């Protein structure tokens, strides 16, 4: 059994918050965007950070939020 983190908007599961953030910023639908807005985050700000600055700044910023917000799901990994 392992702890997986669940995307607050869709069914995506990830083993790391940063990976979940990466998934999140790759989604282009309105639902994902609206949730970001509700958390006072800007899609464009996060992406601009991620793509114009070095490191994983955009992902890390979102990952921090997801650490609090993403549900933990126990999944049997084979």
């Amino acid at each position, binding site marked *: 059994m392992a702890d997986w983190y669940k995307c607050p908007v869709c069914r995506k599961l990830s083993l790391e918050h940063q990976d979940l953030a*990466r998934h999140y*910023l790759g989604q282009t639908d309105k639902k994902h965007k609206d949730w970001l807005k509700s958390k006072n985050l800007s899609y*464009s700000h996060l992406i*601009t950070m991620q*793509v114009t600055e070095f490191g994983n700044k955009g992902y890390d910023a979102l990952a921090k939020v997801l650490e609090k917000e993403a549900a933990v799901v126990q999944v049997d990994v084979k």
Partner: protein
Amino acid sequence: METKYSVIGKPTGNVDGMAKTTGEGKYTFDMYLPNMLYGKHVRSPYPHAKIISIDASEALKLPGVKAVITGKDVPGGKWGLWRRFRELCDQIALADDKVRFIGEPVAAVAATTKDIAAKAVELVKVEYEILPGVFDPLEAIKDDAPLIHEDFENNINATRHIEWGNVDEGFKQADYVREDKFTLFPQAVVSMEVHNSLASYDKGTGKLTIWSSTQSPYYLQLGLADALKMREGDIRVIKPHVGGGYGGKNSTMPDATTAALLSMKTGRPVKVVFNREEEFTTTEHRMGLHLAIKIGLKKDGTILARECKIITDGGAYTGLGATALYLAGIFQTFPYKIPNWRYDAFRTYTNKVWATSVRGFGAVPTVYAAEVQLDRAAKEMGIDPLAIRRKNLMEPGYEAPGQYKVESCGIVPCVDKMAERIKEKWPKLEKDEGIGYAGFAYMSGGIFNWIDTPYAYSGARVQVNIDGSVDLFTQAADIGQGHNTVAVMICAEELGIGIEDIRLHPGDTATAPVDLGAWGSRETLMNGNAIKMAAGQVKQKLVDLARAKLGENIAYDLVCREKRIYLELRPERGYSYYEMVEAAIKLNDGEPLIGTGHYTPHNKGMISPAYGMGIMAMKAKVDRETGLVEAKDVLIVHDCGQVINPLGARGQVEGSVHMGLGYALTEEMPNDNGLVLNPSINDYKIIRQRDMPQIELLDVPTYDPSGPFGAKEAAEATISPTAPALANAVFDACGAEFDSNCLKPERVLKAIREAEKNQKNKAKAKK
């Protein structure tokens, strides 16, 4: 070199030579059918607008006009090449609700002459509601930017994140770290034959035949099936000779869909030919992008980490742009060992014509940045630019975690050969001359299956007739790269006969097995394997028969060579090929000998079964007063596995360098709010004969287990190093640094002055 082959490896003239040098060979462009109509598009003058209404009544009144169609007449849905991800299938035959770039087709007419068609287009009245547009990727992702496609928030079309090793740790351990930013401009494809299609719909049977200038008959068949809501099998795509593709003819484009729709509506054959301006403004091109790149090295020049970020100007639709995004990252890492690597890529929609696969598919802009940065680092660290490359080269068996594994790999001997040759070739430089290097590698066909085909990636069928002649069927596409010659050579080698014994039937979906078409340097390896397998099946029958007749023990090997089938160790014992074919067919109850072959890569990672690679050196001269750069001389050392046709391989190298030099020196597509500013060959500058340097090509032969006879990619990769080698040569000559491609004289002059200023400031600082 002594070779065990009798056909491959020998310089062989093009099998399409007669067709292409006498004017007898037909391109789609050359085809006219009786009773044919001419189709032409009504195009949007706005980059982003709602279509309120379309009134075709005046156009329809014009004598000779047979039909006008709009988005409402398109029976099918959206289509695209990323069929595995339906949301990325975003292309439409004719804009239905809104237009997304200047020149997007909103309606089309069919008329009895081209002049009437042109006049009719003027008479179609379209009412638009203009919407705000977005033209730069960094603008496109803003929260308040206008949305180009409803379901794509912040106009993000596709993203990629690839990371291996521990990048941050790598940078921490590095003795030297530098960061650079680039903006790379788009490059137009400019095939000499424009996009054009001729469609003929048979009302009686409900089946469609279309001749089209395409790189992939199969992709076109799929795209048309989606657009027209027809079964694939009811659409026959025939690819005549194609006047160039270079990546720009993979997508199903409006020439094909419109010709088909108009033919279905009128019941007459319809031809749609783009003019050159339409070609520049409404067909696909190489992506422009903003890029940030960071490298960390040890004192001795060993690369510890690299990080690269790109955001691309995708244009209004997807095409193969999402694939380009991926390859842009992957091929930037070649041919070097980069233990820690991070890549972020975002593709945005903008209100421009869209970006897709173009020769060097993805790799060209990112390789430019990486190779240019490497030279800046080398200079500051005081390491020779060739030595720093030598230090970091891949070796056979090298693996990039989770991404790719390189089997055959001749890059080390390539660089060593280069170092040796360069000393003899350019012992001394003249004033204002410099030498630049760049490494390169490329795939031998892609493994990714975004097209979502259930078929093998390539197929071939061989039929051997009673007289020993062979009919070879495949959908593999020769678009000028010379694959027809390669296909016939591989078939002849396998059967031990001559190329004159073979008649090739390429590019017809009704008669030949599926092949995914000409992109990603895939035909030699993938179609070559399919052909070898098909021919091999027939060969086996002949060998078995010969063995039985000779009464030999099964342990003895027989070979098919020079039209004989004989014991390898006792060549005098055997039969003629013709004799065996005749006997085999008679034994077969009179059925010709049929062999079928197919190829799909398995267990070869995520990218490609094999990689061609090498190194380029360029000598260039700079005019310090005007900024004019002259590419003087080029040296390339290339590992492309077993070369099938040395003539064809050289031809492809020369062509790649030519197109790469255009990217380096003269080609860009300046755009003003969605308007392409140089949509003609007068204004879009292509390198001419007197501007083209001589190229010396040296070969480092290897054998790749994945390829037919050990063959792999040749030459497409050589476009990628051309621009960075040139920029590095200019850097070597005068210290000028560039943050873009297209080193037009004005840009160069500015960079030279900048460099001179910096040198002065440094000198001052020292005092």
